[in-house]
Structure formats: structure tokens, C-alpha cells
């Protein structure tokens, strides 16, 4: 590793400079009409959006791969001449930053040799330049007008296989990037609007599935071609200056909306962290992913300081991480700006520590990161942004404050073998895209509602999986209690179970990092469940149904020996006598569950979303025989829980009715506000200490086993040697749960919310 850090996309990631260095032979069209009449703008805005829609639909239809149709692992976009976004697309949001970086790098590094010309398209999958990992291939087309680059259209699409030591490109044993699919810095795949055969053949040569990759390449190229031609038509009709003025105005309007919202937020710093297990198969360590957001004036700075050193499967590059942490800005702060994310990006800075799992340097192996570290970084991004928005004076903006999303680490359940028709197959289950949406400050999470960064998450039907693969699902159902408990309940995840069917054998692999430690709750909410894989040997399904005529419907109804499968595992080979049970995490809870209306808990129990046991234990709600809350028993139970929280001492007082910030104080969290630099615990009114540090010391601390955090969480010592506890931080007078943390090896998040 060189001494000097150069952010050029070679050893260190490419971080675009403020002014791009472009060869003089290439000129950019940067003249926009000074003003644009509001009607023409509206007409062009609509038309440009339609260009992007058509671009995306074209890719989805031509590719037609399940990755595209269900995983939505692609996105089209329109960028201006310098590679800043005009419209990003409505599919995977975290792919965003990568494309912009790829365009900027191409402008800087290809404008002199071989030169960028009309009719070119460029292809790249280099994660140090502008790809989330090697499988996400970017195709970019400059749109030329009168010899100058007017704008770019580009897309990213996940490929089946581009070669390397493992099918699909991801080898969990990879020691470095040389074990993985080749990295391709931007190359000219089209010249004069014709595919360059030499480049295409080089691109396909390493793939195990060149036919499909070739089909997907056509999807990407056709999408760009359609978008480029449509924009040229618009220029022909309205004039380049007018179309450019619309592009600029879209960016400016989005920026103005962003700044209006920023104005309601005090300067401050917010931190969150998550834990992932197993960097290399066989290890039992936990690795920290830490994200800090600082707001100063109109600038947001994201930092990865404190994250674990790069290594093993967890490492990701800057391009992916940047896209991950900003992807939640779009839905939380620019929800009304139709994917014009540039408005926020103009005010985002990134202070990254290289050599970490979120900013790996070459030659780290990085292809596994999107499903692991990058996904978790999206969740952490949502949390730090939420903590920031919780301090806003704008009540509407505070309605975007959310708990941790479900499925913080994608549980890859790969499956290979011989299918029911005798042909070899290799695939993975896409069911966990049915993640749970977060709980918000005003509503519960949506059970199996999908991710907040994949706006149209689509689970396959069970029948579609069974039609193509040799398996028979015993069940696929939402998992009660898997959403974190809270004033607003996290959404439930789900669980499926299958037996191998009409096959001699299948081989299962697991790759994830959320089996040991779940996602954290927010403002006193409980954590979610974890992902889980259990292989039940000799489950006795055939005997059971022969004997009872009844299909088993839950793990507890199966016989046999349980193999608690770790986050990364290989060569589990179930026979038709075994059952594979696979669950994915819910989203976490928001706020103290004792503050949830008992009737909501009763409704959840009646609908099977929460078990009666957990209702009593976490929510303190006791149900009468008719299923309605027993008011007296509930009050008594809730008092008992507060007393337990305070170490056996009954609370000194009841909660005051006030909301945080009610008397003009500055809100800090749901239950904390700030008066004259001192933090107040709102439930009791007690002053805790200076906001600049240490206020959590004024709260009662209670450490519990992680299994107390969620009934679906298993003892972490099954999978890790690190000590993990569920920490509750409690108002010492009322017993209100002000905050929860997941603490590894004794260290907690001491100052996760500070304002200045």
C-alpha cells in the first residue's frame, strides 16, 4: 500500500474532485437558458421522467432475469454533462452513487485516450471506480449535441456470472480481489453505435453463463440507446438550452427542498453501529460497522470512522458505501423530488477512513459486500438520518423518523444440484426481499413490506420456485414477534421451510451476517429478530403426515435433530427426510413498548402478529379470555416491568404527559430534549447532564441477555465468541425505556445524539 493516499480509483477509491480534469479535446455543453417558463419546464420534466421510465422498463423486459424482475437489482438514470444526477430511477436506490462516479471517472480518464465520441457507450464494473461490486455492471452513454457532451444516460444491472473462482462471482473464501470476477475499468463497448466485438468477447470470455450476460448487455445497451435518442428528439424540438435549463432547474428545485428541510435541524452529530459476524468462513468474530453523520450549516458529512478493518467477505468499496448511506436521504428528505437526488448530493461530504470494511483498498475482496456491509450501511444510514430528523422543528419532517429496516444483511440461501427434470441448476432464494418496513414515529412497520430502498420489492411466488427447483415448501409465513417491540411495532419478517422434492440431493450454502446479532431498536424500541437457518435432520415429515394426515406448520412441530447453521456455511446437503427452515429478520421497534396502546397489542395478538406471551413480557399487556386487554392486570404488569427495569425499586413517579420539546426545549430524541445545553429526560423531567457528552450516565443501565430482546433471537454464543448484551437505558424515576443498545464486549454507543 502506498504512503500517499490518492483518490483515483486505483488502490484507493475514486472520489471525484470538485472540478473535473477533462482533456481539452472534449467539450461539455454547459449552456442552459437563463430562465425557463414554468409550463415548458413542466412539460419537459414529465417527458424526461418518461425517458427514464422507458429506459428502466426496457432493461427489465429485455433482461427479464429474476434478479431484475424480483430483485430490481438495476437502475436507469439521466446525468448532466458532468455526471451529476438529473433523474435517478425508481429501482434499487443504493446503486446511485456508483453511476455518477463512473461517469466522472470516465470523463477524467478517457477523454484524451481513447477519447469520448458521439455513438460511444462505456462499460465498467470496477468497484474502486464506480460499481457497488463487480457483478453490477454500469453502461453509460454520452449524449452528444453539436459535438459536445450534452448529458449522459446510464444504468447498472446485476449480472449472473462474470467469472472468477466461484459461480456468481462471490467466493466467501476469497483472500483478495484476484479470486473474484475481473474488474473492468471503463471500456468503450460501443463505437459509432455499434457493439465492439473485441470488447464484448473479452467481457463475456470469463463468464460461466455468457449467453445470459450477453442478453443482459443488450438490455443495458438498448435501454441507453432508447433514452439517448429520446433526449436528442427533445433537444431537436425544444432546443438544447431549454432542455438543459430544465435539467438544472430539477437539480436546483431539489436542492432548495433539501435546504428548506435542513434549515429546521440544529447542527449536531449522530452515530449508529451494527455488528456482523464471520469475516472468513470458520471465524467466530463480530465486526463493527459504524456510521456517523454530522450536520453543520447546510452540509452533511458522513464518516465511517470506527468501522472494522477490511478483511474477508465484509469489505466493500467507497462507491457502494456512499450510495448506501445516501440512499435513505432520498426517501427521508427528498420524498417529493421524484428521484432527483442531486439536491442532497450537492451538500453531502464523505470523510472516509480507508482500509476499512466500508472503504476497502485494492486488492481486498469486495464482491460480497452489497449483501452484507453495504446493506447494513443502508440501515445505519436510515438510523443516523432518523436521529437527526428527530431534532427537527418541523413535525412533518419528523414523521420520516424510522426504526431499523428489516433484513439488514441479505441472507443468501444458495441452492445447487440436479433439478426435478434431471438438469443441473444453481440459484438462490429471493424470498427475503419480502423484508419488513421500519416502524415510524407514528405507525407500525409493515410486515413483509419490503425494503425502503427497493420501492417495489417483489417476492417470488412459492409456485414459481417449486416449478423451477426441486423443493416443496411446507410453509412460508410471517413470523410472529419477529418485528421489534415498541411504542410502534417493527414489521414482522417471515420464515419458510422446504423439503428436497423429486431430487436425489441438493447442496445448500448460506452467506449472510445477521444470524448472531439483530438490528438495533430506536428510542427505546426493541431490536428485531435475526436471520436464521436451521437444518432439521430426519424431521419425520413423511411419517407425520402418514400418521396424522396433517402438514407440520412450524419448527416446533418437527421432530429430529437441529443443526443451527451459521451465517456462512457450505455443503449442507439435506435429503428428502430433512427439512430446511429459513427465516429472515423483521424491522426493529420504535419507542418504549410499555407506551403502546393495549388495544393495538390485542389486535396484533388476535391477528397472530404477536404472541400472547410476548405481549405480556415486552408490552406488559395481559389479555382477558375474550382477547381484549385486561386493564387492571395490564396496569399491574406494566408497573411490575418498570419496577424490574429499576432493579426492583418501584418508579418514584408516573410519566409526565409531555412530549419532547413541548415547552420550547430543543428535541433530541423521542424522550430526551435539551435546555441550555443540558439534556432532560422528558418522562420524569430529570436533568441528565451536558448534551456534549455523558448524559446517558444519568440513566439507569440494565444489561440483559440478547435473547431477551426478541423471542426469535437465539443465544449469540452459538455463533460468536464475543460477548453480546441487550442494554436498556431507563429513566431512573419513571422506568421509561429511553434507549436500547446492542453492546458487544462492554462498549456501548455513548454519545449517539449530540447537538450544538
Amino acid at each position: 500500500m502506498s504512503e500517499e493516499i490518492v483518490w483515483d480509483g486505483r488502490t484507493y477509491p475514486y472520489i471525484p474532485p470538485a472540478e473535473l480534469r477533462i482533456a481539452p479535446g472534449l467539450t461539455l455543453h454547459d449552456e442552459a437558458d437563463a430562465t425557463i417558463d414554468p409550463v415548458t419546464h413542466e412539460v419537459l420534466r414529465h417527458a424526461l421522467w418518461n425517458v427514464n421510465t422507458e429506459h428502466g422498463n426496457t432493461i427489465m423486459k429485455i433482461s427479464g432475469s429474476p434478479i431484475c424482475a424480483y430483485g430490481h437489482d438495476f437502475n436507469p438514470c439521466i446525468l448532466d454533462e458532468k455526471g451529476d444526477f438529473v433523474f435517478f430511477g425508481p429501482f434499487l436506490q443504493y446503486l446511485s452513487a456508483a453511476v455518477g462516479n463512473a461517469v466522472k471517472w470516465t470523463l477524467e480518464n478517457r477523454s484524451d485516450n481513447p477519447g469520448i465520441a458521439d455513438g460511444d457507450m462505456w462499460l465498467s464494473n470496477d468497484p474502486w471506480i464506480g460499481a457497488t461490486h463487480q457483478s453490477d455492471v454500469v453502461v453509460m452513454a454520452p449524449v452528444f449535441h453539436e459535438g459536445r457532451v450534452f448529458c449522459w444516460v446510464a444504468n447498472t444491472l446485476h449480472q449472473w456470472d462474470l467469472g472468477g473462482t466461484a459461480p456468481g462471482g462471490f467466493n466467501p473464501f476469497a483472500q483478495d480481489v484476484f479470486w473474484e470476477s475481473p474488474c473492468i475499468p471503463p471500456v468503450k463497448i460501443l463505437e459509432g453505435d455499434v457493439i465492439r466485438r473485441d470488447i464484448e468477447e473479452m467481457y463475456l470470455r470469463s463468464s460461466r453463463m455468457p449467453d445470459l450476460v450477453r442478453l443482459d448487455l443488450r438490455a443495458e445497451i438498448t435501454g441507453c440507446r432508447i433514452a439517448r435518442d429520446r433526449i436528442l428528439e427533445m433537444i431537436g424540438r425544444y432546443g438544447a438550452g431549454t432542455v438543459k435549463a430544465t435539467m438544472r432547474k430539477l437539480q436546483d428545485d431539489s436542492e432548495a427542498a433539501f435546504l428548506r428541510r435542513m434549515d429546521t435541524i440544529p447542527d449536531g452529530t449522530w452515530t449508529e453501529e451494527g455488528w456482523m459476524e464471520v469475516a472468513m468462513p470458520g471465524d467466530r468474530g463480530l465486526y463493527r460497522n459504524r456510521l456517523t453523520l454530522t450536520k453543520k450549516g447546510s452540509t452533511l458529512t458522513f464518516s465511517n470512522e470506527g468501522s472494522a478493518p477490511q478483511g474477508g467477505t465484509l469489505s466493500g468499496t467507497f462507491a457502494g458505501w456512499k450510495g448506501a448511506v445516501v440512499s435513505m436521504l432520498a426517501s427521508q428528505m427528498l420524498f417529493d423530488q421524484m428521484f432527483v437526488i442531486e439536491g442532497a448530493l450537492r451538500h453531502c461530504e464523505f470523510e472516509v477512513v480507508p482500509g476499512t470494511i466500508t472503504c476497502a483498498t485494492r486488492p481486498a475482496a469486495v464482491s460480497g459486500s452489497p449483501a452484507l456491509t453495504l446493506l447494513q450501511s443502508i440501515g445505519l444510514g436510515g438510523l443516523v438520518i432518523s436521529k437527526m430528523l428527530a431534532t427537527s422543528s418541523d413535525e412533518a419532517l419528523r414523521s420520516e423518523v424510522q426504526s431499523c429496516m428489516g433484513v439488514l444483511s441479505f441472507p443468501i440461501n444458495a441452492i445447487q444440484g440436479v433439478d426435478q427434470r434431471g438438469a443441473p441448476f444453481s440459484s438462490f432464494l429471493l424470498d427475503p426481499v419480502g423484508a419488513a418496513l421500519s416502524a415510524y414515529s407514528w405507525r407500525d412497520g409493515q410486515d413483509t413490506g419490503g425494503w425502503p430502498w427497493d420501492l417495489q420489492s417483489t417476492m417470488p411466488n412459492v409456485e414459481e420456485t417449486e416449478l423451477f427447483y426441486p423443493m416443496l415448501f411446507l410453509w412460508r409465513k410471517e413470523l410472529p414477534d419477529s418485528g421489534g417491540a415498541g411504542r410502534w411495532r417493527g414489521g414482522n419478517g417471515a420464515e419458510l421451510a422446504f423439503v428436497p422434492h423429486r431430487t436425489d440431493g441438493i447442496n445448500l450454502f448460506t452467506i449472510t451476517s445477521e444470524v448472531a446479532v439483530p438490528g438495533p431498536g430506536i428510542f427505546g424500541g426493541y431490536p428485531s429478530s435475526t436471520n436464521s437457518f436451521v437444518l432439521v435432520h430426519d424431521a419425520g415429515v413423511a411419517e407425520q403426515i402418514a400418521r396424522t394426515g396433517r402438514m407440520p406448520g412450524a419448527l416446533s412441530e418437527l421432530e429430529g435433530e437441529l443443526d443451527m447453521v451459521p451465517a456462512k456455511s457450505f455443503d449442507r446437503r439435506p435429503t428428502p427426510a430433512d427439512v430446511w427452515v429459513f427465516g429472515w429478520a423483521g424491522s426493529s421497534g420504535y419507542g418504549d413498548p410499555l407506551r403502546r396502546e393495549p388495544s393495538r397489542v390485542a389486535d396484533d395478538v388476535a391477528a397472530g402478529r404477536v404472541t400472547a406471551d410476548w405481549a405480556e413480557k415486552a408490552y406488559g399487556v395481559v389479555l382477558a379470555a375474550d382477547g381484549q386487554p385486561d386493564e387492571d392486570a395490564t396496569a399491574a404488569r406494566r408497573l411490575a416491568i418498570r419496577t424490574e427495569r429499576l432493579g426492583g425499586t418501584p418508579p418514584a413517579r408516573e410519566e409526565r404527559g409531555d412530549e419532547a420539546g413541548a415547552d420550547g426545549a430543543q428535541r433530541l430524541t423521542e424522550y430526551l430534549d435539551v435546555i441550555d445545553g443540558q439534556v432532560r429526560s422528558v418522562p420524569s423531567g430529570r436533568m441528565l447532564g451536558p448534551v456534549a457528552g455523558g448524559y446517558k450516565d444519568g440513566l439507569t443501565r440494565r444489561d440483559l441477555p440478547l435473547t431477551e430482546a426478541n423471542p426469535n433471537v437465539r443465544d449469540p454464543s452459538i455463533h460468536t465468541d464475543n460477548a453480546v448484551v441487550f442494554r436498556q437505558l431507563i429513566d431512573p424515576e419513571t422506568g421509561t425505556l429511553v434507549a436500547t443498545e446492542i453492546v458487544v464486549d462492554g462498549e456501548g454507543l455513548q454519545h449517539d445524539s449530540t447537538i450544538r
Partner: protein
Amino acid sequence: MISGHGNGSTMGYYCGVDIGGTFTDCVIMDESGTVTLAKASSTPPDFSQGFMAAVEEAGRRAGLGVEELLSQTDLLLHGTTVGTNVLVQMRGARTGLITTRGHRDALIMMRSFGRSAGLPIERLLHVSRHRKPDPIVPPAFIKEVSERIDWAGDVFLELNEDEARQAIRELLDDGVEAIAISFLWGFVNPDHERRVKAMVQEMAPEVFVSCAHELIAKPGEYERTAAAAINCFIGPVTSTYVRRLDEATTAKGYAQPLLIMQAAGGVVPAAQAAESPLFTIGSGPVGGVTGAAFLADMLGHRDVIACDMGGTSFDVGLIHEGVALTATDTVINQYTFFMPRLLIESIGSGGGSIIWLDEGSGTMRVGPESAGALPGPACYGRGGDRPTTSDANVVLGRYNPDNFLGGRMTLDAEAAHRAMATVAGPMGMTEVEAAAGAVRIVESEMADLMRQMTLEQGLDPRGFVIYAYGGAGGAHAANFARELGCDRVVVPLGDLASTWSALGVMSADVLHVYEKAQLMAAPFEADALNAVFDELEERAREQLASEGFTGDRVEIRRFADMKFNLQIHQVEVPVPGGTLTGEQAAAQVDAFVTRYEQIYGAGSAFTGAGVQAGVFRVSARGKVRTPSLVRGTSGAATVTPSGRRDVHWEGTGFQPTDIFHGEALSPGATVTGPAIVEMAETTIVVPPGDSGTVDPYGSFVITIGEGSR
């Protein structure tokens, strides 16, 4: 026998009835093609009263009593939104669901995408507002039964009848009015579903019961279960309505089964519609497209964009090579289900769409919010103070405040100006500039939708003729046609436009669609294809024969949904009729590639990936020999305008403009733009450079000037 004329029976009337929110329209046509129209008020919640009133009025106008009319009616066809309304308003039956043990959550999970399915793009990014809809079947009414069939149709676990009986008993105890039955792979082997249905019928004959496999024969348990659940949810209300109407019309002398319009673009007998009301969902705009296809056939237009602009929405259908294009799934209330239907897409852009100022960007937006019927546009004078598209048309002088809708309504021009000023002022525009801008936005958004729809089908919109109907269509059609590069607009049939949907319903054929899912990989064997299509066609021909359609009255089209291996998205490809030869079977791959490249562009297909077919479909039409419309008598080519007023035109501003009254225009009459033609149901705008003429059937045809295209 319902095949209409030509069965040797005496010739009689065709009668179409279409029920909208406000009016119930009836169109009758005699064997000579002479048409009589009538309107009556719709009568919710019992729409049958309005139905009979409209038929009675039509009879009166034709000089017949209602019984006289109905007893001489060969075909009585009806389009109803009863089922759609029940679903949209979530006022359906208390519905239970019996499904495979372990899979009760399929309907609740909604494959996850139920949280955002069908959301307009403007709301897609606002994740905190995503929400799955209220369940059609509450979780407590979803019962699981042990049974299991695998993908090949083999029984893995025999139906547990004790559990089934118990489940039915519990649902009945809970007072359900309808029970849906949907098992995994029930469409491959329907035995378990059928047996449970028989048990329900035995235990509770009064309960509406519906099996998923009877509705849909494709893989996808969520969409199939949703279809069965929705069918049950709307079933009791819709079937009661349809049956009662059938009985009432029979009592009044109509001897055939009442025919009900389906979303797929044809009619089926009332008894079938009562069992499967699902297929009426979304059939509201179908009548209009069917009517367009009927007229297009007479006029010799093979490619037509059919658009309906009413008060709140703009609905577009496509007719290509004489056939209305179809789609295979439907999203309503965020529920998705498979259902063959006419491809019709909508945006919230109508005469009542509100023009508003987007404070953030300082730009103008139009819709999707609508002023609705109440208060309606400001110019209606019913208290509306926000400007709408109709108000813009008043401000621009396109609408005549004193002769709107044939003089039935007086518009308040001042109110329109006042409302427009609320948006114009903050933008530093005059009311006229704002109105002209709003109209431009509306027209370009409409053109964007039509362009998108045609391009996605691989078609060039410039070759299409635009049919514009609905109250607000005529005002905008010339401009959005120009925007699209089309050269011709047909505003159908002058006054008939007002009852256009009823005319469409009246002209519909009987249509049955049969599907079978079966995975086949290329190279295809002729025997296998023949076996699938023989089975489907036999069912279709049997059904049509029972309805009186044989010989050349039967039109069968075959399709296969095909894709490249490992793709999800399928393309519908026509398959030749008759017994296929080996050569034809092999050529099916070429047909797929051709269609594929037509949609996605040359070079996009890559056959190296391998080709599969998954679903086979037969669309069987019982051709109703609707007579041709009567041609009118030609009149003078040159017509004297009924007046002149200032109308605003883009580029030139207000100009004195000729105004024509529709009734003064006979076939052959020609109008040169700029001009306004005021018809009883719509106002037609003929911009400068364009011209219009009345065709022999009374439709107004606008030719877009070459210079302005």
C-alpha cells in the same frame, strides 16, 4: 341461443346499457342500423331501476313499450361497474378463505409489493406512507387445511377432510357470506379445491363459493388467491344484481340471457358473470374501446388509439391491426391478480383536474387531484374555487359559457377567471397565460402516456388514428395528436359520443378466454402444442356452441406466452390455427423472436439463451353480427358559422374564430381551423392549420395540418 341475427329467428333489436356514476345510458339499434339513444339517472344502490328506466326511455323514443322492445330484442348487453365499486369502496361480502396449511399468509404478504402496487410514481419514493391495503379477507377468516399437491399435479398429502369440514364450520359460525378456496397447484390438479367446494355447497348451499382454479389457470398462488378472494368479496352483491336483472328483463319479455361485459372486451351470459364477477372488474372503460373497435372496423382504420377524457381521468386503449390489445394482470386497491383484460391505462387528467402551483419549484402542475362532480370546476358555479382544465378552456374561449353541453349548462366565466388568477398571480402570469400553459401541460402529458403505451408495444404512434370521446376529449385531441405526430383524429359520431360506452357494449361479441399453464422448451413438438390447443379449443367451441355460435360465427385466436430461459417477463405470441405441422411448431420460435424484436428493438433477442413457452391461451369469440351504422345524407360542404368569438390560440393569442353548431353540420361538411365546433356532448377544438369534416356516419374527423406536425 344468444348469437343474435342470422339464426333464422326474426330480426330484432340490439340493446346496450351502460351504467355510470351519474347516468345510465341505453342504445338500441334495429336491423337497418338505425340507432336510438336514451339516458336515465343512475339509481344507486339499486342500479337495476335506472337500467329499466333507460331501456324504457329508449323504447319510448323508438315508439315501443318496454315489453314490446324487450320481446323483440335479440341481444341485451350490459356493462356494469357494480363489482368494481364494491371493491373500490371495500363494501364487499364477509369473506372467508380456505387455503393450504402453511400458506395462509400468501394473501397477507401480497408478495411484499402490495405496499406500493399501483401507486403513482409521484408517491413511490415516499416510503413512510407505503401501506398494504386493508385485507379483503381478515386474518381470522383465513383457514388452513392440510393437503398438498406438487407442481406436477401429484398428491403429496391427501386432502384432510376433517380439517376442511372444521374450517368451513368455523367460517360459517363466523357468519361469512362467501368462501374462497385456493390451494397450491390447484390449477394443475383441481381435485382438492373441487372437493372442498362440494363440502361447502353441501353444508351451506346459500354461501357464495369460488375456487381459484375456476378463475385462473396459471402459476402464482398470490395472484390466484387474490382473484378467488376478490371474486368472493364482490360475488354476492354482483351476482344478485346480475341475476335479478336477468330475471327482470326476462319477465319483461326478453327471451335470451342477459349478456354482461367483461374486462377482456367481450360479453358472457349473466349466469357465467354471476359466478365469476371478477371478470367485470375494470370493465367500465372497456365499452368505449370496444365501441372504437366497432367504428374503426367500419371506417377501415386498423390502428387506433382510443382515448376517453372525462371529468377525472384519461383512459387510453390501443387497437392494432383491428384487434384491441390486451394485458394479463390487473392492479386494483393495490391488489394484483391475473385476468385477461383489454390494455387500458389511465392518468388522473380530466376536465376536473385541478391546476395548482408547486410552491417548491414555482411551476404549474395539473392533477391528479380532481374537483370531481362536487364542487366541480369553478366555472360550474357550484362553489369550486380552484382552477381546473375545464376552467382553462373557458378562459381561453374554447368553451362557450352560454352553449356548453348543447346549452344544458351555463358556465360562470368570471369564476373560471378568478380561479385561474389564484395560480397565475403567484407565477407572475396572466390568467390567459396560465390557462394556455395548463392546457399545454395536460396535452403533453396525455401524449406522453400514449407514446409510452405504443412504444412499449413496439409500435410507432404516428401510424395511428386517434379516437377521442368523453366530454373533454374533443377539446384537446387535435393538439395531443399533433404532439404524437398523428395526422388524424376521429371524434366519434357526434351526438352518439354521449352514449359511446353503451354503443360499445351493444357492439360487443361474446368472448371466452381459456388458459392453460404448461412449461415447454423449444424445440417445440407439434403433438404437444396440438394437444394443449385441442383441449382449450374444445372447451371454447363447446361453450360457444351452447350459446348458438358455430361455423364462421366462431373466431378463435391462439396465443402462447413465451420467453427466453431464465427470464421472468413473457411475451404473448400468436400461434397459427388448425392442426400444427412440425414445421409450424418449429416456426413458433421465429415468431417469438420477431415479436420480441418488434417490442424491444432489432438485435435485442438472443436465442442462444433458449426459448420456453409457459402459458397457452385461446381467445374464443362468438361473432355477433351487429349491423353497420346507417350512413347519413350528405349535405353542403361549406357551412356558415353560427357565430364568431375570440379564442386563444398558441402563438397568435386571441383571434376572432368561427363557431359552428354541431347540428348544422351534415356529412361532408368541412370546417377549416381555427374553429370551434360545439356539439351537444363535447366541444371540438380545431386549431389553425388543421381542418375538420363530418364523415358519413356523423363523426367529426380532424386532419392535422402537415405544416404543424
